[in-house]
């Protein structure tokens, strides 16, 4: 290649190059990777939805139809009798009162546990953020460490402790247990949320003469709605779905819905009533599901708010 040849090929036509240059909105292309991604997502969704579908369909069938064995078929003669049975007549051992007592027990356990644990955790987080005292960081470290302790390890000591004060196998006992075990994660949540609030707000309130409680109730708490929603969702879901603590600490008369469900499903007197079992399971799972669907939007927002800083 000589110098002359290079100069000969040098002049490039101006116009075509201009036309090929990017201009305006970037064209959207569907790449194979994208298609693969969507296929995977659909398959994953089906994987989780098919059991739900079977549960719903089965719960609406009568026993003769179930015995035919067509798992995926829609119910020929839809009936709500299994749901009524699950709620009112299903047998756990000798009692045949259905799930409803368990539902009310779960409410009695969940409501106070959620309220108490969130009140304690928000005060904890507030104090740790704005009123640092000697050893505050150590305490916070211990609390966070608590989040990693496996539950099973502390069950026996807790039984001994609670029975020594006469609270074992009682409603207050199970509420205390849930409150304690909610504390690490909830305190972490609230502390991180408050840490993202400008400290000048707190200083301004101090100059205005507000004390510990007034700053908390008048300024911090009204700002804490998003993180409180997150905490409520976490706690309601966690406590409602709990089986282990319920069966150990609540005592037979206070057994929560999950324990009752287990007993219904495992009680076999003659025929195994799949439709009733399915209906009972859906009923038990309904509460956390509803909470999540109602406040899911808040959940994401609150998690993001707490995640900015901490």
């Amino acid at each position: 290649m000589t110098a002359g040849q290079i100069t000969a090929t040098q002049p490039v036509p101006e116009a075509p190059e201009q036309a090929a240059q990017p201009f305006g909105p970037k064209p959207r292309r569907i790449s194979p990777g994208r298609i693969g991604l969507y296929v995977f997502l659909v398959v994953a969704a089906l994987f989780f939805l098919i059991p739900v579908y079977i549960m719903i369909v089965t719960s609406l069938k009568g026993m003769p139809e179930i015995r035919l064995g067509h798992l995926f078929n829609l119910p020929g003669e839809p009936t709500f009798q299994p749901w009524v049975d699950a709620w009112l007549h299903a047998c756990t051992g000798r009692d045949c009162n259905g799930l409803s007592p368990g539902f009310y027990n779960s409410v009695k356990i969940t409501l106070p546990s959620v309220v108490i644990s969130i009140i304690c955790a928000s005060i904890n987080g507030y104090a740790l953020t704005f009123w640092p005292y000697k050893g505050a960081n150590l305490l916070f470290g211990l609390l966070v460490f608590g989040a990693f302790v496996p539950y099973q390890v502390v069950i026996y000591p807790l039984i001994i402790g609670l029975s020594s004060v006469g609270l074992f196998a009682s409603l207050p006992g199970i509420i205390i247990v849930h409150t304690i075990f909610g504390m690490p994660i909830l305190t972490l949540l609230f502390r991180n949320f408050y840490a993202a609030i400008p400290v000048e707000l707190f200083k301004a309130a101090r100059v205005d003469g507000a004390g510990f409680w007034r700053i908390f109730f008048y300024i911090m708490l009204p700002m804490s709605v998003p993180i409180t929603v997150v905490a409520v969702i976490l706690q309601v879901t966690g406590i409602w779905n709990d089986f282990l603590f319920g069966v150990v600490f609540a005592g037979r008369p206070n057994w929560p819905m999950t324990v009752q469900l287990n007993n219904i499903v495992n009680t076999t007197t003659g025929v195994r009533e799949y439709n009733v079992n399915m209906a009972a399971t859906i009923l038990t799972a309904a509460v956390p599901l509803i909470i999540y669907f109602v406040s899911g939007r808040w959940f994401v927002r609150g998690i993001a708010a707490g995640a900015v800083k901490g």
Partner: protein
Amino acid sequence: MAQNGTSVSIQDLSLSFGAVSVLHTLNLDVAEGEFIVLLGPSGCGKSTLLNCIAGLLDISEGRILIKGKNVTWEEPKDRGIGMVFQSYALYPQMTVEKNLSFGLRVAGLPKDEIAKRIARAAEILQIEPLLQRKPAALSGGQRQRVAIGRALVRDVDVFLFDEPLSNLDAKLRSELRVEIKLLHRKLENTMIYVTHDQIEAMTLADRIAVMKGGVIQQLDAPQTIYNRPVNRFVAGFLGSPAMNFLDGRLEQDKGAWHFVVEDVRIPLATYAFEKEPVPGPAVFGMRPEHVAFNSGAGWPFTATANVEVVEPMGSDTLVWLKLGKQNFTVRVTSERTPKNADAVSIGFDPMRASLFDAQTGNRL
């Protein structure tokens, strides 16, 4: 201890966080009705000092008197202070009116008294139409007005401002600066104002305290600080464009003192020495606006040089030259802007210069 007319008195105040010492035996007396500006770069301890005065930080040593009363161990609310923060710190869930009245409600004042004070503050700051709005619905300037109002309704002796204008854009900043000055004239309260902005300091202050490393370097009227800085740090920190510094030597020649940079000899006959000069290395400081440009002879010192860089700044132009192989800037009105590489003459009177010790940086 506090004499009549002293509003805030800080005596031997020290503060350290663990091993880190932030303020060192600091003394400051603020007269009643005085506007004091604490000026310094980030981390110089100026905001920390303000927080100590407010009672938001516990001090390690010393004491603080406000209106002759020892408030060292008092709560912020009992010190007779109001504070305005950089980030406004308005309570987001309350309306402007509730924001203003919060402190008064905490103090348990009667309703009609609260209403009266809010009406007065709202009138002074012209925020009456905003009273029922939430802070989120206000602009930055309006928010800062409300924040000032919150200090105003407390009816206090001392106002503390912690960089109140730093979050605003340039135009609003200059507007609110004037408003704060007018407010001070109207109320005649003592005001202590923290900023890193030298323009705010120069325009607002009765006296400026220039701080560095937890120590007040110089406490004086703005013009004095500008014209006669006590050390090289103060000289370099104030003024934009910054003061020219030439590294050279002090020499005595037949009884007359000269400052010598390479082949340039600056006669110092008109310079007022702080103390008896001694020959040796020194730093010569001259503000770019105190240098005459192409104005002929008649100056105690004149020189010619070639223009290296021209920086037009709108109202005037900064011209970079070399004087004795060191950078030297001259401020020129924009009509007289020279071109690059032009040969120009400069002249100045060493009376307006500042000489500093090369080692300690103190004024000579």
